[in-house]
């Protein structure tokens, strides 16, 4: 089938614009993750690909063919629903077999394919049970089994791990990546969990309020967020973004932030200066802020310990604060202590305060 593409797709429900002017190309055999907060239109985008929703305007393309008028059953895709949507009156075997039955696959072939899918997913023992007799994790596997049994061109998954406990989620994440490698098919995977996105995706497409914010490989999205939304959505804790003004410092341009000054990456700073902006948004990730008595003065409000690391929340001014991520083996400052923070220029991100877009 090669690529799946959104061409200027908009989907409205009454006054709600669930998907807005969407343009996106999903490569053949790619693992693409649609990431965004709840209600941003991820499921709607996925359902548009599945053929469960029709675009209000624009086209969904499979290869060079517009599939807008092609029914879901003829799109050669499979979908795993968040609720799994297993047929409660059918056994596991019948559930997995169902896509084969509807396509009139001969019985012997059906038996072979179901056995194969069951073996892959470790469901052999459960084939004669009904969904109500399975655990959440087992149901999730049956849903996967029903999806893979027919080997469609693309797999669509809508938050398939969100109903699993944390441990099982980590395990299944790895298994899905492996499944993707073995099947060599396109995966379009929806989640609101950035960790899932970062760990599984070939590329992440980040959405907010129906609109595509950025698309790129996980590392790129992390290192060069296209706007403040992406900057703060990817990464945990989120990137510190504060208002600043540009000034001439010792060696080149610096930013005056509440509490002190920080150096700026020269090229981006020059670009920002050329734009004649009234102020700037300056972003530094918590892991790139150093508590080394540097030039930015702040007061420690709170230290949160997560075991393997600590988050130090510092007040820069009555309105602005920054979070510093400290390794567990670094002794943390005391609450109320005044500390000095440093950021190195290479780790400082600049954004236009009017558009929130990245400045390079």
């Amino acid at each position, binding site marked *: 089938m090669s690529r799946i593409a959104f061409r200027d797709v908009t989907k409205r429900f009454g006054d709600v614009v669930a998907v807005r002017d969407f343009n996106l190309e999903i490569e053949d055999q790619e693992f693409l993750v649609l990431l965004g907060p709840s209600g941003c239109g991820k499921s709607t985008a996925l359902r548009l690909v599945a053929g469960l929703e029709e675009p209000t305007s624009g086209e969904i393309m499979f290869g060079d063919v517009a599939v807008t008028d092609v029914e879901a059953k003829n799109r050669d895709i499979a979908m795993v*629903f968040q609720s799994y*949507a297993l*047929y409660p*009156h059918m056994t596991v075997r019948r559930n997995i077999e169902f896509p084969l039955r*509807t396509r009139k696959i001969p019985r012997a072939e059906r038996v072979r394919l179901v056995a194969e899918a069951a073996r892959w997913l470790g469901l052999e023992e459960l084939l004669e049970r009904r969904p109500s007799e399975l655990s959440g994790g087992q149901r999730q596997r049956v849903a996967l089994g029903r999806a893979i049994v027919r080997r469609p061109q693309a797999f669509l998954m809508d938050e398939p791990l969100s109903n699993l406990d944390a441990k099982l989620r980590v395990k299944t994440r790895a298994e899905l990546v492996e499944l993707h490698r073995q099947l060599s098919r396109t995966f379009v995977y929806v989640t609101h969990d950035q960790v899932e996105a970062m760990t599984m995706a070939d590329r992440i497409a980040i959405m907010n309020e129906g609109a595509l914010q950025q698309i790129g490989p996980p590392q790129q999205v992390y290192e060069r967020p296209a706007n403040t939304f992406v900057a703060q959505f990817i990464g945990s804790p989120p990137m510190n973004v504060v208002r600043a003004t540009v000034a001439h410092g010792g060696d080149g341009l610096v930013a005056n932030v509440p509490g002190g000054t920080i150096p700026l990456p020269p090229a981006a700073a020059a670009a920002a200066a050329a734009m004649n902006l009234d102020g700037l948004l300056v972003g530094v990730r918590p892991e790139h802020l150093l508590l080394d008595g540097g030039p930015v003065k702040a007061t420690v409000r709170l230290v949160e310990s997560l075991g393997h690391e600590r988050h130090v929340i510092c007040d820069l001014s009555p309105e602005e604060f920054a979070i510093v991520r400290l390794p567990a083996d670094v002794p943390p400052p005391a609450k109320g202590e005044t500390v000095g923070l440093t950021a190195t220029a290479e780790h400082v991100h600049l954004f236009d305060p009017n558009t929130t877009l990245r400045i390079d």
Partner: protein
Amino acid sequence: MDDMSATEVTIALPKPAGRWRARPRLKEAAFALVLLGPSMALFSTFAFYPLVKTFYLGFFRSDPFGLSSNYVGFDQYLDVLQSNEFHRSLITTGLFALFTVPTGLVLGLGLALLAHQKLRGMVVYRTIFSSTVATSVAVASVMWLTLLNPSLGVINYGLEESGFEAVNWLGDPDWALPAVSLTTIWLNLGFTFIVILAGLQTIPEELHESAKIDGAGAVSRLFNVTLPMLSPTLLFAVVVLTINAFQSFGQIDILTQGGPLDRTNVLVYSIYTEGFRNFNEGVAAAQGVALFLIVLVLTLIQFRFLERRVFYGN
């Protein structure tokens, strides 16, 4: 009577754990009695007492004038159960159920499937389809009496216009039961429709969507998703419609009075004729007990399937 309920209630409560709990327990029991009292009184007056009394009446044979009666034990029950009249009336009732239940169910299902579509203005159709639940048996019967009238009725007019012969619906022994069944189907349609529509609305939309993606067309989804998921609801409707059929009286009384040639003399109508026309209280009572047992069995079946509904839940 009151004393009896009082003992029943106290027995039903767990034994007080210690002396100090006795007073609150007693208070609770008294409160329970106050709550249960009205319904106990109603049930006793209108259900338990008549039931026992009916069973008792079946032991007495009335003389032809309905004046004196003698105790005959189970003889009269045996006579009734073996009599031709009873068998014929049972067969008529069975036929009546056969004519009304499957057709009514299929029509109700069809309307419910139509009304379940997400289309503009569907609320209007839902209201229309449900409206027969708000129609009394008497009103419906009179309406159909007019529609079925051999010379003035719309139905015969329609038949003649399209080249068929007029039918004497309620007077022709071959057509009377189908005509009464038609009325009954119409009368039950609102109920069937509402129950099935409610059943349809409990089926998660994602099952349909999943089936679409799995390659199922509309017909396949109907048979593989909708009907299996609806089966507890359909069984419920079948049992209730069957019980209704066995209990029908009003439309028969208004449309045919059991005639012609007893062709619409269903069980309840036969009980009525024996008891209130022929003053054969004992015979009517024995038939009543038979009807009670039939409906009891149907009700037990219904309870079983209502329990099975739970099975589909997670």
